[in-house]
Structures are given as C-alpha cells and as structure tokens.
C-alpha cells in the first residue's frame, strides 16, 4: 500500500494521534490553512473558521505570512503539553487565501470521510 494522507480539519487531529484508540495505520494527514504566525521553528496556520494549528517546521520549510498552504505532516504532541500539532513533512503554497473558498474544502473533508472507500483503505 502506498502512503495515504487523509485531508482533515483541526477538529480531527486527535483521531490521527499515534496514541488514539483503534488500530489506525496512518498518522500522516493533510491540512489546509493560512499562515498566521511564524516563530522560527514553529508556525501557526488558521484553518478558515475551524481554529488554528501549530506546525513544527523542518529546517528547510519556507512559509510566508498570509499565504494559503497545504501541509502534509504527522500528528504530534507539542512541547510543554500544549496539545496537538503537526510535524511538517512538506508544504505546498497555494497563494492568496482569498482565491480559495474554504467552505468547499470543508465539504471535501466531509465527502472524503463519509465515502471513505473512494479515497482511503479501511483501517
């Protein structure tokens, strides 16, 4: 099986955490959001009206403030018990957030999980 990376919203992070119950084989996910803060080795993206997610960056990650990015990464615990974040594996710059209707992305997440057989193997 090749690697599958489900598209999710911040609310679904816990379901992909390594410690979560259930024999889920994948902890690698895709998230879409606008870069809202940069702090050296971490960054924050805002996922429409669905909250923020902290990213743990790679040394060669190049994020720009205010850009829409698609992040592929593993769900991880943040330092100091600040909840869940994403350890970045790769990012794709999609440019201006105004060019994307986030509502459509929410529907995409909904559709990909409701009709799972089209997108992901059963776990």
């Amino acid at each position, binding site marked *: 099986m090749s690697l599958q990376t489900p598209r999710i919203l911040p609310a679904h992070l816990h379901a992909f955490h390594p410690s979560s119950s259930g024999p889920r084989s994948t902890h690698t996910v895709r998230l879409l959001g606008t870069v809202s803060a940069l702090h050296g080795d971490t960054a924050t993206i805002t996922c429409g009206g669905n909250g923020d997610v902290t990213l743990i960056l790679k040394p060669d990650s190049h994020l720009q403030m205010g850009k829409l990015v*698609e992040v592929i990464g593993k769900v991880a615990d943040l330092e100091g018990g600040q909840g869940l974040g994403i350890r970045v594996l790769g990012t794709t710059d999609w440019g201006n957030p105004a060019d994307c209707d986030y509502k459509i*992305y929410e529907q995409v997440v909904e559709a990909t999980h409701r009709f799972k057989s*089209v997108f992901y193997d059963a776990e």
Partner: protein
Amino acid sequence: MDNYNNYGSGGGGGGGFMPGETNSPSGGKSGDRDNKTLRPVTIKQVNDASQPYPEANYQIDNADVANVLIIGQVRNISSQSTNITYKIDDGTGEVEVKKWVDSATADNMDMDGGKPPGDGKSEVKTDGYARVFGAIKSFGHKRYIGAHSVRPVTDINELHCHVLEATAVHLFFTRGPPGGAGAGANGAAGDAVMGGADDYGAGQNRALASMSPLAKKIYNLLKTEPQDDTGLHMQQIASKLNLPATDVARAGEELLGAGVIFSTMDEQTWAILEY
C-alpha cells in the same frame, strides 16, 4: 456538364453512413467504441480498478472506464527519449503516468535548443499539482496511466471540485442518478446498463399514461398473466377481462400503435414488447 452530374450523384451515393450499424441498442457492453466517457477518479480508484478478464476494459464501481481524470501532486519526473514518466500522488495513492513525447514536437524542441517553448505556466513541476487525462494501462503487473495530457493546476478550487466530482460520479454508479426517489438506491441498479433499461421502462410508462383505461388493463394483464413467448390471444384476453372482443381489439390496436406490445402468431395474439 454530364460529367459533373455523374460525379455529383456518385459522390452522394457513395457517402453517408451505414444504417443499422449505429442503430444497435446501446447495451453499454458492446466495447470501447460506445464508451467515450471521461471519468474523474482518485488514484485509489485507479489502483483498485478491476478487469473482469485479461485485456478487458478496466472497471470502477462495476462500470467500464475508458478515460480517467486525476489531480495529484507530482512526486517525480523522469524524462526519457520516448516518454516522460510522472509519479503522481493525490493523498489516496500513487500511480505512474506516462506521456509519450510527440515526435513532431520533439523535433521542434531540438531546433529550439532542447527547450520547450516555455511560457512558465504550462510547466509541470516536482511537488506541484497536475491534472492528468488518460487511460488506465498496464505493463506486466504494473499499472500506469497512458496520458493524453498533463498540465499544472494552479487553482486549489479545481482540486477540491475534482474530489467532489469523483465522489458524485462514484455515487451515481453505486446508487443511481440523484433524485431517483431511492429507486436505484438498493444496489441492484448499480451500473449504467440498468440505468438505461430504467429509462426505457419510464418511456413505456409515459406512452401508457396517455392511453385508455382498457388499454392499460390489457397491458397489465399481458404483463402479469402466465404465458409462453407467443403471448395471449385476443379471445383469451376478452374472456379473462370479461369484455366484448371488439373493445379488446380496439384497445389492442392502441397498444400496437404505440409499440408497447407486438403481434406474434397472428394478428390477434399479442405479447409485451420488451427491450
């Protein structure tokens, strides 16, 4: 002048299409020629596509697929002399895409110093998104997509739209057309062939709707009464419905005229015309 006329009529006679060839009912199973659909799919669906027997068309959700459309991220590009191979990943799986190099374009490229006339926009880059239009092929046990076109995607809404379209088409094939009042929802009407038959059924019902009550009665009798394939004789129908033969004959004419029944042994023996 004569020559021109002869030429004209000769040309007219020789041209045209062969009637009958195109009149076969579109059963949907008669091969690639009837299936020119372009179906949006995910890479998982491509990798899961089944072949009923070797060399057969690939099937997704029990429907033949001729051409597919995928959108994914380019993970690798390898250029060979005859083709460019892309590795595409859309989050549901990975697949190789081969685009054969058009020799005419390749020649031009040589003359331009090996570079395509790049306008920057039409370039597919590693880790960028690409839209691929092609057919599912296999070489040995390895599945790949023989691409007709590979182009970059720059609008994320196009990606999201594709995902939703792929879902909608999947639901069409597994549950039937939308708004079907659950008619096709029970699984049996799972493919295009059944869909087609349903349409015919609807057509017959529409033809019946405008008919006299007696014609409808006869139609229902022919439909439900046990019979061999020669159908029922007018006299049998008349006695079963307790009606004068002349009325039955008139209603029968009506049904015959609409083409929902046909005469078998003789003019007075009818059976339902089923497609």
